[in-house]
């Protein structure tokens, strides 16, 4: 009896360990990569606070998308429609503001479309029991095609088409001056973040709290852990799945607006492969693809690692543009294998 209790206890401890261990590995990896960048590229300004903030500035949209992706992956599903949905959002914003509609109206429209899109996908996955991959693949086709229906040209948002949106995009929130540095001309460069970063961080914290402290958040973990057990416990599995996909598409729409604030344009080929970045970020951040385990802060660090890789390649300047893709894939491979090894160890201990 005693030994049984003991093994149960150690098992519990180990379970906690292997999941937190993945998160710790991710954070350590990020710190090591960033430190290495600072050492190697110190002369190219990698040590400035602004370099780090630029990673955030450039990836604010991806942070929102990764948060949504984490929620879906917690249920054991996947959402590959996000890249195309972002392209559609950007196109809609660019087209709408070009036609003279207010930026606020267009943003509201984008979010409503995101909710409807998520509802349809969630309904197909939850209530019709179709594989998430197939449903979101169709969603991906659909959104990309609709982007082309709106316009096949590259539309851009300028000060003339929408002063409001332009204002949002160019607003800088300055941080305390002591974090800045003196540039070559003797002027102090005060570090800044964009509006989209504030939105992204707010989303991150909100989703963290939702996942941790609300009934809905915990039901996602339960469904991902074991659908059958969750159903037997009295959870409405279908509804939880539906909500997860609606949340994902909703966050993706917010991410789309953040993304558009960055690019200020809409085109059919925009954000291709973004779904891959989001999934990779989640996996690197310790979210299990089988569901039930994960954390949005892990995904956040995954995005930062992604951003650091492209930032390093950009700072180097000599490497081909396909290197970030390859490096991300290598990391992805490493983490996937690591997860599988952990899972195997856990099974053996059972």
């Amino acid at each position, binding site marked *: 009896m005693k030994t049984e209790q003991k093994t149960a206890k150690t098992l519990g401890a180990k379970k906690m360990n292997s999941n937190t261990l993945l998160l710790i590995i991710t954070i350590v990896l990020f710190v090591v990569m960033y430190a290495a960048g600072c050492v190697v590229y110190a002369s190219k300004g990698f040590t400035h606070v602004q370099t780090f903030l630029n990673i955030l500035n450039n990836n604010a949209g991806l942070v929102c998308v990764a948060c949504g992706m984490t929620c879906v992956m917690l249920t054991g599903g996947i959402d590959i429609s996000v890249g195309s949905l972002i392209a559609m959002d950007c196109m809609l914003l660019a087209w709408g503001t070009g036609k003279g509609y207010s930026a606020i109206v267009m943003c509201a429209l984008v979010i409503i479309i995101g909710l409807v899109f998520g509802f349809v996908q969630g309904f197909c996955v939850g209530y019709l029991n179709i594989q998430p991959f197939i449903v979101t693949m*169709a969603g*991906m086709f659909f959104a990309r095609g609709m982007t082309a229906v709106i316009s096949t040209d590259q539309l851009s948002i300028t000060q003339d088409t929408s002063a409001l949106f332009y204002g949002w995009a160019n607003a800088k929130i300055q941080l305390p001056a002591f974090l800045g540095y003196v540039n070559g001309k003797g002027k102090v460069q005060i570090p800044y973040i964009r509006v989209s970063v504030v939105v992204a961080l707010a989303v991150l914290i909100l989703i963290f709290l939702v996942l941790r402290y609300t009934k809905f958040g915990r039901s996602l973990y339960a469904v991902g852990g074991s659908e059958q057990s969750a159903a037997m416990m009295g959870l409405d599995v279908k509804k939880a799945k539906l909500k997860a996909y609606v949340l994902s598409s909703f966050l993706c729409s917010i991410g789309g607006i953040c993304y558009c604030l960055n690019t200020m344009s809409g085109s059919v080929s925009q954000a291709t492969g973004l779904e*891959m970045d989001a999934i*990779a970020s989640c996996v690197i951040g310790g979210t299990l693809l089988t569901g039930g385990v994960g954390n949005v802060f892990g995904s956040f660090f995954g995005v930062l690692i992604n951003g650091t890789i492209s930032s390093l390649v950009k700072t180097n300047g000599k490497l081909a543009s396909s290197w970030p893709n390859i490096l991300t*894939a290598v990391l992805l491979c490493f983490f*996937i294998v690591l997860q599988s090894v952990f899972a195997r160890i856990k099974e053996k201990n059972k």
Partner: protein
Amino acid sequence: MDKLKKLSKQQLFLPIMCVLLVLAVNIVYDVSQGSPFYNFFRITIENGVLSGRLISIINRGSEVAILAIGMTLVVSASGGTDISVGSVMSLCASFCCMLIAGFGVSSVSSADEFACPLIVGLLGALLMGCVCGAFNGALVAYLNIQPMVATLILWSAARAIGLLLCNNLIVYIRVPEYGIFGGYIGFMPTPIIIAAVCVLIVSIVLKKTAMGMYVQAVGINKKAARIAGLNSKRIIFMCYFLCGVCAAIAGIVNSSRITSADSNNIGLNMELDAILAVALGGNSLGGGRFNLAGSIIGAYTIQAITTTMYNLGVSSAVSPVFKAVVVIVIVAIQSQPLQNWIRKHRAHAADKEAAKA
């Protein structure tokens, strides 16, 4: 009525219905345009080669058909999909052209400039396909990683590696010997022959050996198959391996068609077409029983839809919308909950009628 019901239960019912629907749309369109209704089926010989809309569909659909062979086996054995095939196609094509032209060379216009003989390039591409297939297979079979996730790695990396091999260039091999795989032998389009040979070899192997049964057994219940004495892991590995080889062949055909290696565009979204072909063919995406013929018909159906849409004047950027709708409708029809609901509804109606009587 009973016969009709029986017919609709057949596995090939769905793909054949789709083909008929596409044909009907084409015929209606032709007649409305004032052409004879058999315009679609007309096969003529122009410039010494076969031509006509039907031939064009079968010719253009070859790559998807070849991919569908591998994908069917992968889906059947592992209950998952290999989403890396499009990228692997691109990688193999790039590797082939890189070997033939030499690294960093962007254009070759005669056989004298070859860095390697043609055959070395082709074998290299096949080898690359084997390596990619083995990589996916090892991850799925031996490390127990979800198929979609394992293939996600190459989905992102393969195209990028291909770009790297080609030094970010589009490598042109403007040599007739290379173009033959996407061109014509005599009057026959070569891709049709290649696809037919691939289908023939695989189906003979599946029929003559117990391989087909093994794959299905593993797909239906991996554990039970292992207990029955099958090496489940090796069979899953082999399926992914074969899928890689199929992707390499499709890559060579596609690159030969345009006599160049365009890493960014070869095989783009092709994995989705291949998966769609398998689903259209009436195969369950959850693994288990499969029907190769269904997948092949599915592949040509997709090409027929695409070609028809071009004929109707839908631009290539917009056509994904229709494809998406087709996919969702088909999988929704196949989904269990909807079928249960319809059955319940029918039973309810029958009850009511009985009560009335």
